[in-house]
């Protein structure tokens, strides 16, 4: 049983969808060509003019947009409307240089709220729900994106933002929160605190969690579902494309439906930049179809995913994307092997004996990459015998070796000593100087 917010668009036939996409793509291309000098130049360099777009297949001739392009045109170079039409701006933190700035027109905010409302409905949300929004409010798109989507749904929103865990738990009990939204790592921390405080989860009214903004594994999902007594849904989005609400998981939890009437997804090989067929893993690329303020053409997300076209049991016809398993820029190359933090997380959770709090410390020792995995020891696994703990370390090491093909040192650490984050978890410290 699934509920829809916009059944017409979410279940339309593939042919109808393609018609809408092509119509919207043509308008978009024309518009960025005339109003964004960056795109006009990029099109001209490839010898393309808007009239060349005759079918959806022609998308592959269009130039890519990268994060670097966004930085180079900072702050407003890619805006497609006059600044006066922009009613809100969001920006990335800019920790690695100038931030990425995105702008929304009134209509963009309306579309956004509508798409997030689709997400809530997909997770069974209705106006009867109490949504506790633990995503950070501010320049980050997570908080406000979820906020306006929940309001559009008609639910009761609790705009608590991230952090202040004791207060989060108190309000969850007192307000009867039914849907929790936040990053999976912070919500896991909250779940642990709820358990540590001895609160019976049956006294909570939680039924669903909407988690995103960072890659997480299926094992982590299972833990969140068990600890909080909920169904945990994956939500996807990025500010360069929209914010949360680009794609969302339905109750079948078998990939996230991309709202294709607003975005065209592609999977490319990050090296050759060639499109890959359905089912193959690669870098996710998006073209926005309806955005006015900050449209993007073939934006390279750096997120690793795959696309599946098979019809879903929920009735939605939109393509499903595989949950994000890593990012091309999060990917660690250790002694030539591609390693994603989520793979390690998966192994750790498989053991079920350690808390899913871990830190990967990569260093280079005598020209060799060295990986240390710091893992918080759970009291369930603690043994009063040294040998008992050494066996755990050895089993973890062997499992990492067989799953990832790399050897690592396991270092057991005391609980709650690894850094906790109230936003996106910091899982890697790379000390290599190359």
């Amino acid at each position, binding site marked *: 049983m699934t509920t829809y917010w916009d059944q017409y668009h979410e279940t339309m036939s593939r042919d109808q969808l393609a018609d809408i996409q092509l119509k919207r793509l043509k308008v978009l291309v024309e518009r960025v060509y005339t109003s964004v000098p960056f795109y006009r130049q990029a099109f001209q360099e490839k010898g393309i003019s808007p009239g060349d777009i005759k079918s959806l297949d022609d998308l592959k001739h269009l130039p890519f947009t990268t994060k670097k392009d966004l930085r180079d045109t900072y702050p407003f170079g890619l805006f497609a409307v006059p600044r006066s039409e922009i009613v809100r701006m969001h920006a990335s933190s800019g920790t690695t240089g100038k931030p990425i700035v995105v702008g929304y027109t009134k209509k963009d905010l309306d579309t956004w709220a509508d798409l997030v409302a689709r997400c809530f409905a997909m997770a069974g949300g209705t106006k009867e729900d109490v949504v506790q929004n633990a995503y950070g409010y501010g320049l980050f798109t997570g908080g406000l994106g979820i906020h306006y989507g929940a309001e559009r749904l008609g639910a009761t929103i609790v705009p608590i933002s991230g952090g202040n865990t004791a207060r989060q738990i108190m309000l969850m009990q007192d307000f009867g929160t039914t849907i929790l939204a936040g990053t999976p790592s912070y919500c896991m921390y909250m779940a642990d605190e709820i358990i540590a405080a001895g609160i019976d989860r049956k006294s909570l009214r939680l039924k669903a969690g909407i988690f995103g903004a960072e890659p997480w594994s299926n094992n982590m999902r299972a833990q969140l579902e068990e600890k909080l007594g909920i169904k945990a849904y994956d939500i996807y989005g990025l500010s360069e494309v929209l914010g949360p609400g680009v794609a969302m998981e339905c109750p079948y939890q078998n990939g996230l439906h991309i709202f294709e009437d607003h975005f065209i997804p592609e999977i490319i090989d990050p090296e050759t930049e060639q499109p890959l067929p359905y089912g193959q893993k690669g870098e996710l690329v998006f073209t926005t179809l309806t955005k006015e303020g900050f449209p993007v053409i073939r934006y390279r997300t750096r997120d690793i995913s795959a696309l599946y076209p098979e019809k879903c049991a929920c009735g939605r016809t939109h393509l499903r994307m595989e949950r994000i398993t890593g990012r091309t820029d999060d990917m660690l190359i250790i002694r030539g092997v591609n390693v994603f933090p989520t793979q390690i997380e998966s192994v750790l959770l498989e053991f079920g004996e350690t808390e899913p709090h871990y830190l990967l410390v990569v260093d280079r020792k005598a020209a060799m990459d060295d990986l240390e995995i710091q893992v918080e*020891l*759970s*009291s369930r696994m*603690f*043994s*009063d*015998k*040294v040998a008992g*703990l*050494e066996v755990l370390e050895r089993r973890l090491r062997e499992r990492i070796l067989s799953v990832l093909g790399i050897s690592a040192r396991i*270092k*057991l*650490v*005391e*609980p*709650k*000593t690894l850094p906790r984050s109230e936003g996106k978890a910091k899982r890697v410290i790379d000390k290599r100087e190359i």
Partner: protein
Amino acid sequence: MRVQQISIFLENKKGRLARVTEVLGENSINIRALSIADTTDFGILRLIVNKPDLAYKVLKEAGFTVSTTDVIAVEVTDQPGGLSNILRHLDKVGINIEYLYAFVTQTASSALIVFRVEQVDEAIKILQENGVRIVPGSEVYEI
């Protein structure tokens, strides 16, 4: 007959042992015996204290990974061959000692040895049959 031992996981980091003793001190818990097994990265601190239940609770609340283990305390006469005599009985029936440590009582005519074995009940039985005095928990906590 069993004695409750508190085991604590400690990273080899400055100040952790001091923190344990501080928590115990603040709660008026007295340490009777202590031993540390350590590796390069971590150590396991084993304690016999006068209030084991309270110690477990306050250490857990202070964020430590703690467990309790049942061990056996026996009195050994302070003379050559005293310990050997006891170990022989356990060896004969194939009971393996995981670890042991000793402490001296205030009367000082005998020492107390703390054993950790898998088969606690069986070990107690064998030792008693051979006339070894086992010191019950209630007595050890009050030494």
